[in-house]
């Protein structure tokens, strides 16, 4: 059964791939879009909420990524180049909401909203209460502010931690270590 996603508020485009559907929506209307999908399209279950940082996408020198526009870079040991350079992304952060319909006609869809550094997005806790910890984790790891979240504090890192570890510009191995015996 194919589902049409016409009428989703703020829908920018529908992208398919690997048998999955991605609805790119306007970040400013995320709550509207999510409420619509829950009430009109019966997506009653938020499986997952995950942001992705696309800083340095398709360029070199970023964690998890070695390559260049010219293809293979012979000067970076242990590297392989792209078969093709990936398409640029509209903004730095993508916030992905993986929705599921728990019913006799199950269906999955990904809702994607794009944010620049410093931009905020509304919380979806009123739509799915399970978003609480997911949004806290997103704040903790990426520094994305969810407007209206009742308790937006760190969840996995310590309360006084500096920086947001899953950002691509967060260094690896750069955190200070206190050795025992040191005063």
């Amino acid at each position, binding site marked *: 059964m194919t589902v049409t996603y016409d009428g989703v508020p703020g829908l920018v485009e529908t992208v398919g*791939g*690997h*048998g*999955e559907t*991605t609805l790119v929506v306007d970040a400013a209307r995320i709550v509207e879009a999510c409420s619509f999908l829950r009430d009109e399209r019966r997506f*009653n*279950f*938020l*499986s*997952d909420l*995950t942001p*992705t*940082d*696309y800083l340095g*996408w*398709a360029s070199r020198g970023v*964690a*998890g*990524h*070695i*390559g260049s526009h010219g293809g293979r870079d012979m000067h970076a040991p*242990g*590297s*392989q180049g*792209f*078969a*093709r350079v*990936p398409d640029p992304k509209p903004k730095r952060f993508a916030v*992905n909401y*993986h929705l*599921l319909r*728990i*019913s*006799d006609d*199950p269906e*999955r869809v*990904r809702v994607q909203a794009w944010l620049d550094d410093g931009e905020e997005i509304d919380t979806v*806790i009123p739509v*799915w*209460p*399970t978003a*609480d*910890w997911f949004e806290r984790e997103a704040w903790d*790891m990426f520094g994305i502010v969810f407007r209206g979240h*009742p*308790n937006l504090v*760190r*969840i*996995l*890192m*310590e309360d006084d931690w500096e920086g947001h*570890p*899953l950002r691509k510009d*967060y260094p*690896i191995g750069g955190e200070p270590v206190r050795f025992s015996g040191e005063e």
Partner: protein
Amino acid sequence: MSVIERSIKVYEGSRIPSPIPTALKVDQEKHSLDDILTINFGPNHPSTHGVLRLIVDLDGEMVAGLSAVIGYLHTGFEKTMEQKTWWKCITYPERIDYVSFQANELAFVLAMEKLLEIEVPRKATWMRMCLAELTRIHSHLVWLGTSALELGAISMFWYTFDDRDATLDLFEMVCGTRMHTRYFQAGGLAEDIPEGFYDQAREWCKKMPKAIDEYEAILDRNAIWLKRTKGIGLLSADDAIALGQSGPVLRASGVNWDLRKSMPYLAYGEVDFDVPVFPEGDVYARYRVHMEEMRESVRIVAQCIERLAEMRGEPWIADDRKVVLPPREELHTSMESLIHHFKIVTEGYLVPEGEVYECVESPRGEFGVYLASDGGPKPWRVKFRAPSFVALQATATCMTDAAIADMIAIVGSLDGVMGEVDR
């Protein structure tokens, strides 16, 4: 979806706290009475299944306020995986939830294969299913042993860990290691199934149902066990869905939802099994779901073994030399095999650009993996949807109007594995 009708109406609307759905707050007027005692439960408490910290406001014996603090076991798996080649990443998901290792590895490998668009031989599919179900039993045995131990049934712990050992023997026989096997590869399995596996697994399948009967004989007539689990930690079907619960917790709230049946993956559509559903939504129902699921998993394992026995001599991994390591013996005679082996191990293989979300029904519920690839040899982003992480969000709802002694039973029944919660 068939939500079973409850005989007694327990719930009046939603019990999810507001405005923070995951924390109970003490009434302000109560707080001023000086009757409230705030205690810190954990992070190092033997019955928190790891390092969970609960800040509890007590009004006498009753829990008036509660908030969970997690993160004590955060090790940055997702960040680490961004630094590793895809090939090396396979080892990580297993270590996130060290009790359901094979199910996590399966989800990650399935997601990778979705990006790679690689065809997996049927023998690998059936063996994956077999090991995933063995993992489920392993995980449920650990759950049963520790949860019963916390409620005073110490002997359960010894019995379940004995059978858990027999289960791990099967893993050792197939993979060489008892846990964290890295047996699933992109494209299939690491090795062929050893010849002795079939007989030992058949023997195990005969023994296991009897063992489950014995567990029930110990617990089901035990007045203390029944008193401490029945009617405790109530979670309604609507609340469970709203709070994102999955797996045994969701099915114990009367929602007939199992990814293996509802959205079949691997070859679950071809095996015969039932999904146990209990409508009560209490700790006892969760215990019942775990017990019945073990029985169903034994049934699936038995069917897998018979099917696998017919597939002797078939390939166990896809024939794609750009992703799959060449056979060991070829390395001595074939230059190209040696080069490919070297390249795959040192540089890794390229995974096409794209993003996927793939999930499996792990012992704890929906274990999802979100992958984003830029077409290079390392993942751009890995995210795990950990069912334990979500399950602990239901603590506050389940603990509404509960006594302090129920807390142990409730936290245990939600089956959180802190390694997976904190990742």
